[in-house]
């Protein structure tokens, strides 16, 4: 310790904690997006560390598509209770029932999350929304700021971003505008797993490998569940799979894996050759600029 060096994970943690505190100190009504996915789990953990021994000074919000893995929702509720934070649920199903959004014919609710998110932000007057996105996930994300400005319509303008120098983040907004804040910007998938391991953070079971009944769709293995039933002509089989990312239960595919512990997952991630979104997310495959287009509309 006397050489005053710290590991890069400790440096990333210090940076994230700085960002959480900066928002709490300068923004009026921040909120942390929390889905029970591993990145948002790390976010909640970091937020607790940033303000300890005081509680987290802002609520958490889940934009709930209604197409979740049941145990992830259980985990969400348990974790929120432990942390003693207020949970706001913005329901996509409710928005469909009210006619605010229309469910796409293919049943994927990823894109219609955005208006629900924006409506909730307006209702609660949130001016800063924390998200767990990382720059290593996707090319458009690689250019997004840590403090990312959104206009009255929640839109991201990639060509007109605020320059971000040193650690001087500009979180100023007018009423109705927002800042999306990404404390994990500089983390990679491997960093997140290593941090989960070193901090002993519990995860929902879907992240660990188990024998699951799956169908093969275009090379991706989807576990049969409430939302995924074998279609005509599809055969199900049993395979040891785990989830690298957890999105909607009807969209997220598993990867073949024997990893049943964090250490085994880290070992697998270290040698993997495919990005986590490429391997498991049906929703990113649409076009070369799919993510940029969704972000422009206000998506995280």
């Amino acid at each position: 310790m006397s050489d005053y060096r710290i590991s890069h994970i400790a440096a990333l943690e210090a940076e994230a904690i700085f960002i959480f505190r900066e928002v709490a100190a300068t923004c009026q009504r921040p909120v942390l997006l929390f889905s029970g996915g591993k990145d948002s789990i790390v976010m909640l953990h970091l937020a607790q560390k940033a303000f300890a021994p005081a509680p987290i000074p802002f609520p958490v919000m889940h934009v709930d598509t209604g197409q979740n893995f049941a145990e992830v929702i259980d985990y969400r509720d348990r974790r929120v209770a432990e942390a003693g934070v207020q949970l706001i649920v913005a329901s996509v199903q409710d928005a469909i029932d009210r006619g605010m959004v229309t469910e796409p014919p293919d049943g994927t609710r990823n894109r219609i999350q955005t208006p629900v998110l924006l409506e909730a932000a307006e209702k609660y007057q949130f001016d800063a929304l924390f998200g767990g996105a990382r720059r290593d996930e996707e090319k458009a994300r690689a250019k997004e700021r840590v403090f990312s400005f959104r206009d009255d319509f929640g839109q991201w303008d990639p060509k007109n971003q605020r320059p971000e120098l040193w650690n001087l983040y500009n979180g100023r907004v007018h009423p109705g505008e927002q800042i999306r804040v990404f404390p994990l910007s500089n983390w990679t998938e491997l960093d997140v797993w290593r941090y989960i391991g070193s901090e002993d953070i519990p995860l929902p079971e879907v992240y660990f490998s188990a024998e699951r009944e799956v169908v093969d769709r275009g090379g991706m293995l989807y576990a049969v569940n409430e939302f995924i039933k074998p279609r005509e002509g599809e055969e199900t089989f049993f395979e040891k799979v785990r989830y690298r990312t957890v999105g909607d239960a009807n969209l997220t595919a598993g990867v073949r894996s024997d990893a049943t512990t964090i250490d085994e997952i880290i070992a697998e991630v270290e040698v993997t050759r495919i990005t986590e979104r490429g391997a498991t997310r049906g929703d990113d495959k649409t076009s070369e600029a799919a993510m940029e287009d969704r972000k422009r509309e206000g998506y995280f």
Partner: protein
Amino acid sequence: MTDTLTSREDTHELLRFATAGSVDDGKSTLIGRLLFDSKALFDDQWDAVEAVSAGRGDEYTDLALLTDGLRSEREQGITIDVAYRYFSTPERKFIIADTPGHIQYTRNMVTGASTADLALILVDARKGLVEQSRRHAFLCSLLRVPHMVLCVNKMDLVDYDEAVFKRIENEFSAFATKLEVPDLTVIPVSALKGDNVVNRSENMPWFQGPSLLHHLEKVHIASDRNLVDVRFPVQHVIRPHSSDNHDFRGYAGQVASGVMKPGDEVMVLPSGFTSRIASIETADGPLEEAFPPLSVTVRLEDELDVSRGDMLCRPGNQARVSQDIEAMVCWMDEARPLKLRGKYAVKHTTSDVRAIVKDVQYQLDINTLHRDETATELGLNEIGRVTLRTTKPLLCDDYRRNRSTGGFIIIDEADNRTVGAGIIV
């Protein structure tokens, strides 16, 4: 508690470096080569790039497509914005701030350099130093990037000729002595062929230095931090209103510089009151000492009025407390220039103040370093020396002594955009 910081399995050091140059210099190829050879590139990323490249009829896979992420960038074949890339080797983890090189993107270069430990500048061996190379070197020295690497690229196209390399190296070294470049390394490479990028080249036995990656892994950065001047900008006051922690009052922040220990006498600026550090808290327990870049919570022995924007330092080594600020400013706004008598918001450490431009002393031509003393404003991507008067004192140091307490940003009060970056001189 200090144990948990070192016992984490992964003790890689973090090196942030900025790359400057245009597509013509082979910068994207070089980054692609680093990512590819260090296995940081995933198969699906490679497949996507290969497919786009083949679809456009490129003769070879265009590695620039890896970094040019925005639709308009791909359409125009140019890099507009700073892109961040990540890779690691068994030695270190790297964050690359990849910045475009053209003069209209000076602000992006300044942004990327502001947090960099090292700047990597590329020149084409066939063309030698060009205006752009000098501009990049100047900006990196202005932003006090502690280490600079000049890569003389495309050595394969000059038959790996030592004389060509030496000529460029000498010319650049002569130019660099006029700047403040604490550490300069010059490496002959071929990004396309892989010479001296990851592995030492057999084509240039006359070059005794390290490969680029080896240099990035080994360059000594631990002593770049200022561990002498204690500067702790208070970010947030932590006061839990619970019965367990009723008396807890802690000052949260990230150590900007210096080393703090419990028992140390500290002075609170701007009030000038002194106290001692009672403890340095983290969620994992108290620390024996705190140093940059740790985020901690400091408790003092005495109850003082301390709030966000204040700074802890040592009574015998204080930051400057001043409302009259001399600074080099890089202007970043395309809509309106910086104007004499203009009023702006300024963010410096954790403090927000307002400022008026009292004087524009000169505008600097960043290619020739000529000073235009007739200037009264600074346009987009222009750099000049200005005098500011702030509404409240800044607790600051010269940027050359302290990058954390010497830099500030300028914000347009009407639309809240960040319009300038300042370096206190």
